[in-house]
């Protein structure tokens, strides 16, 4: 078993892992010949299945992967990987490889940095200072630094991941391209806050609500604590109602004892389905086509899901990758988000898929 590659776009890779780590710590990373898959299935909340072509994040010609099963399955703490990747900013080269230390499997990230700033010169030893007098400051500043970070991992046997399958969903009732995620997130967060100020004044839940808030805004490392620690707090989190129709409208709403608030986006795009994959006959039978036929003002043309506000906000953190997002609504059942990284729109392969279950009313 062998894996070694140069990293290509560490900014994107880092943003990707940051977005993933907000949903859960444990990540199944599957290295194949052409693609890298990241899967996070938390105990509760949204699961994400990401499929990234190798050349999006790795230098394709340096990518070496050998395995008897034609894939390497790794269990990794994704926030550790994210932290390590952040140190690659400003580096000239970084390499990721699979290695072993005392029989412990590791992912080793080696960062090669050549641009030393003047501030770092203070760290230089006396010897080097002397040599720098000879060769000049310039040379000393460009000295290479090599940092290797080791991230403990688990190698998963093929049989261990055999049972994991991407959820199967019925055909969507409504599919729509979401507006800018930053705007959507800021409004969603405002709604969450509206709901929590309401519950604060209503119940003695202030401590609990506060705890959930601090964990989502704070370090990701304890993001699992509230969800697994107290099922109550997550089940009592604000529930957002998200709905859309086939006439370019998306609605985000929340209802509390004190208020009822809704934001409606209009003139969004309901993307056409690829005719190459679906025959005319099938197309006409799709629920979304039926929904398209329903009048614009008709309530029945809307597909609605009820989602956890905090969880939704974590999902929307993928907005930092400035992707294009197609939301597929399966009425009262689930919401599936197809998140396409910039540059890969139409490139079918680079896609993050989020599966969000709808809560019952």
């Amino acid at each position, binding site marked *: 078993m062998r894996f070694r590659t140069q990293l290509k776009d560490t900014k994107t890779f880092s943003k990707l892992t940051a977005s993933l780590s907000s949903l859960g710590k444990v990540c199944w990373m599957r290295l194949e010949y052409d693609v890298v898959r990241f899967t996070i299935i938390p105990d509760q909340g949204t699961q994400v299945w990401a499929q990234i072509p190798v050349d999006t994040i790795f230098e394709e010609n340096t990518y070496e992967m050998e395995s008897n099963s034609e894939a390497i399955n790794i269990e990794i703490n994704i926030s550790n990987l994210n932290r390590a990747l952040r140190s690659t900013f400003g580096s000239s080269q970084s390499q990721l490889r699979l290695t072993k230390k005392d029989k412990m499997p590791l992912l080793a990230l080696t960062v090669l940095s050549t641009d030393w700033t003047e501030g770092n010169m203070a760290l230089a030893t006396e010897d080097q200072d002397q040599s720098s007098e000879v060769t000049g400051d310039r040379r000393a500043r460009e000295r290479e630094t090599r940092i290797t970070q080791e991230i403990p991992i688990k190698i998963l046997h093929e049989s261990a991941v055999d049972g994991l399958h991407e959820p199967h969903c019925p055909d969507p009732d409504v599919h729509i391209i979401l*507006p800018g995620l*930053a*705007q959507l*997130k*800021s*409004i969603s967060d*405002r709604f969450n*806050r*509206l709901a929590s*100020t*309401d519950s604060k*004044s209503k119940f003695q839940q202030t401590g609990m609500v506060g705890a959930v808030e601090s964990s989502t*805004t704070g370090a990701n490392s304890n993001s699992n604590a509230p969800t697994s620690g107290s099922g109550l707090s997550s089940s009592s989190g604000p529930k957002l109602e998200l709905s859309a129709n086939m006439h370019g409208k998306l609605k985000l709403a929340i209802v509390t*004892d*004190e*208020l*009822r*608030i*809704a*934001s*409606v*986006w*209009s*003139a969004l795009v309901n993307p056409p389905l690829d005719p190459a994959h679906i025959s005319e006959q099938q197309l006409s039978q799709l629920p979304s086509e039926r929904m398209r036929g329903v009048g614009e003002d008709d309530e029945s043309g809307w597909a609605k899901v009820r989602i956890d506000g905090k969880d939704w906000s974590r999902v929307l953190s993928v*907005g930092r990758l400035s992707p294009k997002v197609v939301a597929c609504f399966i009425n009262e059942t689930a919401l599936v988000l197809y998140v396409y990284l910039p540059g890969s729109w139409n490139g079918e392969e680079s896609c993050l898929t989020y599966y969000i279950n709808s809560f019952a009313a």
Partner: protein
Amino acid sequence: MEPLFTCVSNNAHHLYTLLSCIGIASKATVQITPDGLRFSVEEGRVIQGLAFLDKSLFNSYTFNQQPVPNNQGSTENDDSSEHITYPHFVVSLSALLETLKIFGINDLNEPNGIRDTNLPQTNPASSAFSAPTLLMDRSCTLQYAQHGSPLSIAITESGVKTTCELVTYEAEDATDIPLQRDAIIMKIIMRSAWLHNAIAELDSSNPTILKLSACATREPFFALSGAGGPFSESTVEFSVDQHNEIVGGASQAGPQSQSHKVLADDGSSRARATRAKLAPTVTETFLVSPPSSMGERIAQNYRFALIRKAARAMSVANKVSIRGDRQGVLSLQFMIELDENNAVGRPVGAGMKAPAGTVCFVDFRFVPLLDEEDAEMDVPVDNE
């Protein structure tokens, strides 16, 4: 059916600025009058905040009810006598403020208000394109269809329309804190910044009591002290400029702007001449006339934590009128200029010229502490 009340503003930020001044409680009582909207909050019957959104703040203002005529012809913002005749109800003020903030109106200056301190400071929506100047085109519609219906707020921005329906509750028969208009014994008008600086200065020693002292004849003419905290008492005196020594926090705001202020003061020269001896330099109006039973000096104590709640109003306002009646009820009336172009109320370095933009008023009233023991008594901070 035509709604009872509708108003449209193209600048939700103005509404937010005014209402955030009184954002000291979660619920506010709203009263609709032909001249504007009156929002009032109170806490434990010892502090009351009042914001009047004049109809001139709105692009359109339609109120379709003819009120029952009564003897109180005046609809001054601090008039408390018309609760009976106009529709009034209670809404969640915190929800209203959050709603007005929906589009990151407040991105560029996060308020140092009480309830905002623990919110994350970075808003992903903030960018070069969400600067307040670009937010002017959004419209904000308030509507109250009929008695008992929710208060609806509709905010429209390119592509997004947000509608919020706030549940309205029956207003309690809360009477305002009475300020005896015919028994005002102190009236001091000055730039609000001076008061804000003084309170901020005193606040640093974390006092529990604010002592107010005013006298028309002897120094200190006007002094504010913080007492009862873990540190010793500290005092800010507003003194007369003649000796060129300004004591306390007021001096830190820069003496040059003080002298400028005296020159720019548009009071008559005769009044200034007599006043120069008897009034602190920073005051525009300084009237102290205690009844003979009180002696020459007015001294009252207030709970500092309550005064602190008016800090946001102090920071936003241009001028403040400090009034006290015979019973010691303190009224702080803040004049807030809402500039059409400037997002924040007080322009930096503005003189005391006649107001340019719309002028609005926010009032606070405080019940005095009667004696030392009252200070120790723990007044509940929250209503519920």
